């Protein structure tokens, strides 16, 4: 049994933690949260210099070619620090979509720029409130032109390129959908900043008006590729969520130990102890599911859809609980702008929604269980 990260991977984790503690204190998260800039440019540059952006990108595409386990280790630390950079959009989604469906030309043209930090990418799916389904996907991509409106596109303002889920034929269901690769600085693309629940991660509405775009992958397979990309992203995002949930537990614990009420530390009251014990239990379950997801991702195992959905659901639940109960443990000050609790609370909801809500992932999980059971 060897179900843990290697010593080298743990070393990378320690380095990443130290690096982010220095370069990405809560002050840096607040600067983006309260400011106009879409992300922390200095941090992004430093992260690019560390080589993290190309961790799982093959060497012939300008990356380090290390693998997903290393990327997961980094993701946990980015989550712990609430790093306000377009890492997940660019690396977990954009680069993964290119790796999953891109032509050699597309990959060799764009991935080196992802790896060196000169290209920010994103993946646009939603067009309004409600589920993203083949039926709700109306943005059209025909004869090399993209038209329609995408909403809540993470890092949409700062991204240079986007992968867009779009309709390429009137065929009903999934088969009518394809992925389009679009240069967001080209003509026919208009972007509008949207107010985010977590302003440390900016969102945008993107309007395409016959914008020139190229196909990413085989027409009619957009939905299937998107689904695979989401599985990959879910595992790495789960590590971000686990890291952030652990940070909440540490904050709540430290506060409870030092806050006195009725003549004693509130950490001595069972109402608080049991809350924190539950947080710990949730976080450990989430961590273990995330590890399994990492194993499935790194080995290309057929269990990946189940492992990814379980990692996603469990990590979302853990971070949700940890973030809200961290505020509760702090009491009134936890609800002030001055304390950092709200940074985590906001991020917990943003991450819970950005790859699709729990409802979607629970459904995917049970579908995977049904398939496993039928096999």
């Amino acid at each position: 049994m060897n179900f843990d990260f290697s010593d080298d991977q743990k070393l990378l984790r320690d380095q990443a933690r130290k690096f982010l503690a220095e370069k990405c204190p809560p002050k840096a998260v607040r600067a983006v949260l309260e400011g106009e800039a879409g992300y922390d440019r200095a941090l992004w540059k430093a992260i690019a210099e560390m080589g993290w952006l190309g961790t799982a990108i093959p060497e012939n595409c300008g990356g380090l070619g290390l693998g997903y386990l290393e990327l997961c280790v980094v993701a946990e630390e980015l989550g712990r620090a609430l790093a306000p950079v377009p890492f997940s959009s660019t690396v977990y989604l954009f680069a993964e979509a290119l790796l999953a469906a891109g032509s050699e030309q597309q990959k060799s043209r764009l991935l080196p720029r992802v790896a060196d930090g000169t290209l920010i990418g994103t993946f646009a799916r939603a067009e309004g409130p409600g589920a993203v389904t083949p039926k709700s996907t109306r943005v059209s991509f025909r004869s090399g032109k993209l038209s329609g409106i995408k909403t809540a596109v993470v890092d949409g303002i700062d991204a240079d390129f986007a992968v867009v889920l779009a309709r390429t034929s009137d065929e009903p269901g999934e088969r009518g959908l394809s992925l389009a690769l679009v240069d967001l600085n080209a003509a026919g693309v208009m972007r509008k900043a949207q107010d985010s629940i977590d302003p440390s991660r900016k969102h945008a509405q993107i309007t395409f008006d016959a914008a020139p775009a190229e196909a990413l992958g085989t027409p009619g397979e957009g939905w299937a590729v998107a689904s695979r990309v989401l599985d990959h992203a879910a595992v790495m995002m789960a590590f971000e969520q686990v890291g952030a949930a652990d940070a909440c537990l540490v904050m709540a614990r430290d506060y409870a130990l030092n806050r006195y009420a009725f003549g004693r530390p509130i950490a001595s009251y069972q109402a608080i102890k049991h809350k924190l014990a539950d947080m710990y239990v949730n976080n450990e379950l989430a961590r273990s599911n995330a590890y399994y997801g990492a194993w499935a991702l790194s080995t290309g195992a057929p269990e990946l859809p189940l492992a990814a959905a379980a990692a996603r659901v469990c990590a979302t639940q853990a971070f949700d609980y940890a973030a809200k109960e961290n505020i509760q443990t702090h009491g009134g000050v936890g609800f002030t702008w001055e304390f950092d609790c709200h940074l985590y609370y906001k991020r917990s909801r943003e991450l819970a929604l950005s790859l699709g809500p729990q409802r979607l992932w629970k459904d995917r999980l049970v579908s995977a269980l049904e398939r496993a059971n039928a096999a």
Partner: protein
Amino acid sequence: MDFEDTAEEAKFRAEVRNWLDANAPAVDDGEGAELADRSDPKFLAAAKAWQAKRAAAGYARITWPREVGGYGGTPIQQVIFNQEEGRSGNVSALNAPFAIGLGMCIPTLMTYGTREAIARYVKPALFGEEIWCQLFSEPAGGSDVAGLRTRAEKQDDQWIINGQKIWTTGAQISDYGILLTRTDPNVPKHKGLTMFYIDMRDPAVEVRPIKQASGASGFNEVFLTDLRVKDSQRLGEVGDGWRVALTTLMHERLAVGGGQGGGLDVPQLLALARELELEDGPAIRNAAVREKIADWYVRSAGLKYTTYRTMTALSRGQQPGPEASIAKIVVAPKLQDISAFATELEGEAGALKGHDAAMEGIFQAGWMGAPGLRIAGGTDEILRNIIAERVLGLPQDVRVDKDLPFNKLPSGR
């Protein structure tokens, strides 16, 4: 990252598998379930025979030294043996009568007993010839074990013991037991305790089964009336019983911690959901049902992979992290919730049990047993305190009983 054995582990696993193939008795599923009644002489005979066979081969306790009849192996080898034994039909069920004795009582005896006692008792326990039980809990001391009232009073070279124990697993089939008593009520409660081992066949010991809320009787009350015990049967110093008990309880948490739930988990719920029709079609297609299945699946899977992390630490020769302590808090409430939800799916017919119910009534039985599982071996609340204090380093609750003499403590009714 992988789930493979090391070369040495694979060798040990093959050795164990060969031995089990050649030696494990056939216990079929139906029989295994019936056999859970430990008092059944047929079950006890089969269990003792299997225990003797395992002990003769050195497999009864993998981590014990060879000098006392163990295998002299590592914790990961114990895990591997358990896994392989678990694969051999229901043969693991035969170990139940010896779990407490070998898991808790004998390790305590080996730590605190005299050389003569160790020479006399360890081997017969290991070979299943003698069964041990643990007499700690009392009507007035459950989670607060140190609040116990059973009195031991010294008379010359003997102790006279009077009192009542409760929730004693296996007392009705036990030959010996370790017993925690109060020897000094004039000092604070943790300081006035002393541990002994006793002969359960002594006429001064009366065992009565407890009829549980589920109707089953897995536990007993034990009444001790003027029981005379030699001072040489004392384990540890007079007044040092709490420290001795902590040794035992540490072993209990390890022994009771994992893998419970009576085989009822998400796969069974999934099977039921595929079978049943609800108002809007098959239950498995119902969004609310799917959400619930997913909620419980991630907790089950989370525990499974947490166990893998623990095994990885053992395999690397490291001390497992505190994550191993979460199992029972997750398993017991989940069992209760899954089984209640399953009866909801069954609708009006969910009120039936046993052969009259869907899937032979496993959900009704799980629901009925779940309250006990949430209490036995540390209540949900005590386990949360343990995580909060030992894992997260939070302080103990304020204790009003710490410095008062035991006989000055308020005792409720």
